[in-house]
């Protein structure tokens, strides 16, 4: 469906007529909203269709792993099969412990994906709330947030994560939630910065002034008029962050400070496969492919979203 505002017509080339092209918009027709417009553009993009399909599939695997594999991931592990090549019913071979690689990847999806999704939700709650308040009201919250952002900016994420994992609380309660908490602590300032910038851009727009003049309270205007119009860059960052956080979890698990080994996750699988790298490299490669494909899907989705939501890149 095309926008109602576009009228099909032909404009004569400049050198044939002295008249410049006149208005090409039917101004009285209702314009399509940002989101409808974005959806129409997205639907036509191959990258969006591929990445959205992949993400749906990954979510299905995470929710219902039993549909995709019959082999139990941890039962029937025989050391005789250690680092074994693929056989009937075990398409990707066996881990060092003699467990089915394919089944472990399928069952590990849930942990990896939940860390990503939960971290993004936490980061969104913290980052958007504080960023919006700082951008809208300014004042000391804004100043504090800017300085806090500077501090976190000077600390590489992996470095910060490594130090935090050594705190007693994190060492003693290893699990999905501690990793989520850790990632959220390190990543929210960036989200807050982006939100703050977007809110500052919108807060003085005419429609906000109009809403205030019509009697909408200051906070009401923030929630109903400013935020919905400032949310586009936040959504793009959240999508990209999802991929980044899944990699971060895998990296931490790989270093041995992330998820406990009792939880099946791709990072743990890759970490364990290190010892088999010279004998059967593929044990490491398969979970790495699962991880990379998942991250790639989210990054591609984020990229496609940015193309349609960011007016600056839209002109190109």
């Amino acid at each position, binding site marked *: 469906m095309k926008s109602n505002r576009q009228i099909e017509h032909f404009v004569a080339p400049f050198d044939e007529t002295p008249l410049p092209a006149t208005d090409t918009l039917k101004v009285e027709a209702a314009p399509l909203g940002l989101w409808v417009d974005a959806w129409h553009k997205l639907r036509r993009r191959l990258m969006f269709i591929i990445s959205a399909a992949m993400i749906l599939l990954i979510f299905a695997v995470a929710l219902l792993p039993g549909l995709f594999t019959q082999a139990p991931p941890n039962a029937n592990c025989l050391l005789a099969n250690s680092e074994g090549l693929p056989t009937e019913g075990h398409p990707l071979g066996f881990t060092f412990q003699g467990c089915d690689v394919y089944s472990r990847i399928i069952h590990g999806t849930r942990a990896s994906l939940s860390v990503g999704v939960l971290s993004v939700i936490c980061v969104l709650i913290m980052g958007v709330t504080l960023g919006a308040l700082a951008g809208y009201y300014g004042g000391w919250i804004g100043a504090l947030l800017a*300085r*806090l952002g*500077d*501090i976190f*900016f*000077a*600390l*590489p*994420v*992996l*470095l910060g994560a*490594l*130090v*935090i994992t*050594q*705190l*007693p609380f994190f060492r003693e309660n290893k699990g999905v939630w501690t990793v989520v908490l850790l990632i959220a602590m390190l990543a929210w300032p960036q989200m807050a910065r982006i939100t703050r910038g977007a809110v500052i851009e919108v807060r003085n727009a005419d429609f906000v002034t109009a809403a205030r003049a019509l009697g909408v309270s200051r906070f009401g205007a923030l929630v109903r008029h400013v935020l919905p119009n400032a949310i586009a860059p936040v959504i793009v960052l959240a999508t990209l962050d999802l*991929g980044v956080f899944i*990699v971060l979890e*895998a*990296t931490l698990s*790989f*270093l*041995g*400070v992330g998820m406990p080994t009792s939880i099946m996750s791709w990072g743990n699988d*890759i970490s364990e496969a*290190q010892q088999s*790298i*010279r004998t059967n*490299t593929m044990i*490491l*490669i398969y979970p*790495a492919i699962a*991880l*990379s*494909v998942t*991250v*790639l899907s989210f*990054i*591609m989705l984020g*990229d496609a979203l940015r193309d349609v939501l960011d007016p600056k*890149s839209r002109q*190109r």
Partner: protein
Amino acid sequence: MTRYILRRLLQVIPVFFGTTLLVYYMVFALPGDPIAALFGDKQPKQSVIDALRAQYHLDEPFWVQYGLFLRDLITFDLGVDFTQQPIAATLGRIFPVTAMLAVEALIIEAVFGVAFGLFAGLRKGKLFDSTVLVMSLVVIAVPTFVLGFVLQVVIGVQLGWARPTVGANADWGTLILPAIVLGLGSFAYVLRLTRASVLENMNSDYVRTARAKGLSRQRVVMTHILRNSMIPVVTFLGADLGGLMGGAIVTEGIFNVPGVGNKLFQAVLRGEGPTVVVIVSVLVLVIVVANLMVDLLYAWLDPRIRYEK
């Protein structure tokens, strides 16, 4: 310009103190006795414990500890780590290695990122452009440790083109493989940044003027498009130098590079507080100074900031 530099210099101070305070607090001031951890199951004499606590200022209140730590840091009296090795000597050994690795990675990502980005931007929408764009996403999506292992096994072991591990004597040649792994992630960003910047400049008025004057394509591309597109790229590269030095933990671990990241990781796992805080503080200082240099460079490159009164 002078006022801008002064303002930026003043902003560095709270960032440095805030970051070191945060790290110092996390490493030292929380429950759990680092001295007790040092001895494991054995119970040392109380006099030994007291001496060690005094040596690391652990018998003082937290703020005094932090102040003394800062004094030691500024006077470059870094003390000894838990194995009684002078930390300054360790730093002198490991820092050049990581600096070399980071610079090599930076050169790789700059040369290839700018070249690919420029060609992709000039041929927007063509096959080369779309291939490079998708490939850059793939490079971003593959985690460093996976890339490290794959290149180590394929290039280092199976093909034998480069040393799979670095070991004690690191130089530019042996560091090539870890440098590629370290630089690849940022390579994708440099590429996309260059491409976007080239696209923006290609439609600018001064490029149209240059074309209209009848300048050769080569001159338009090299002088008018590329040089102006370098402003955001150079600033990214500058900021990335600090990130590369602090983010080399995984790469240095895989390739056994005797650098800062490797040492830091071991120190964190062993609970060697003094080593951790010193290394992190120095890294933060490097990053803060790198960011400051980038901002100054940006001001110098962009006349709109340069002439600000």
